[in-house]
């Protein structure tokens, strides 16, 4: 039985915070995609992706984050990433995608 990714959703002021509860890899990326789409539909001013529980992303996971950025921009939603650990940072660096994203130190700062 496929273990799907659980993505918690909560509000922080006017922002929506999504917190994936495990890694974002090829098997789990689709769940991230549907969670992001469900938030973008409501067009909050800011979507915060809290990656503090994500230890590993592969290229599917990175692709999902890039897509989230693209769909957010097209729907006038500001996307911010928080909680990036060194492993995830390495994956961003090697794909030269670090500069694309807004990255913040904390959910509170990102939502504010």
């Amino acid at each position, binding site marked *: 039985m496929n273990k799907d990714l659980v993505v918690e959703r909560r509000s922080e002021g006017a922002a929506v915070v999504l917190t994936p509860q495990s890694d974002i890899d090829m098997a789990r990326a689709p769940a991230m*995609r*549907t969670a992001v*789409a*469900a938030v*973008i*539909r409501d067009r909050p001013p800011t979507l915060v992706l809290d990656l503090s529980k994500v230890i590993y992303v592969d290229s599917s996971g990175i692709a999902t984050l890039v*897509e989230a950025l693209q*769909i957010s921009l097209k729907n006038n939603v500001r996307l911010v990433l928080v909680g990036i650990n060194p492993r995830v940072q390495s994956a961003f660096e090697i794909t030269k995608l670090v500069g694309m994203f807004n990255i913040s130190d904390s959910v509170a700062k990102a939502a504010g």
Partner: protein
Amino acid sequence: MTTLAALSACAPSATEGGFSNPAPGARIYAIEDAVKFNRRDQIPRIVECLLSDDELLRYMAIGALQRMTGQDLGYQFDDVEPLRYAAYERWRMWTIEQHLAPPEQAYASTIYPPVRERPSW
């Protein structure tokens, strides 16, 4: 007052109507429900959403199909239209092969009218 109430009763709410509601937002809700309850019978309706002009709906639809089937058949929500249509056709064939849609009635414009002439089977 009575007229206003009657008028407001005519307009479907954003969450009602599911796939029959023309609003992309309503279809996104319908897709969410289908994924949540693993409604594989709704897969053909989700596949139809791959043709939508609404990018967010397409994005949601392909994400849902990946979760429910484990594949994307090469569909990318932001590809140019001819490539999206070609991938949509692959999905259409897949639903027929999986007996999720009957061949003769598959995609009889339940959601979208035909945008071009489709090959006859």
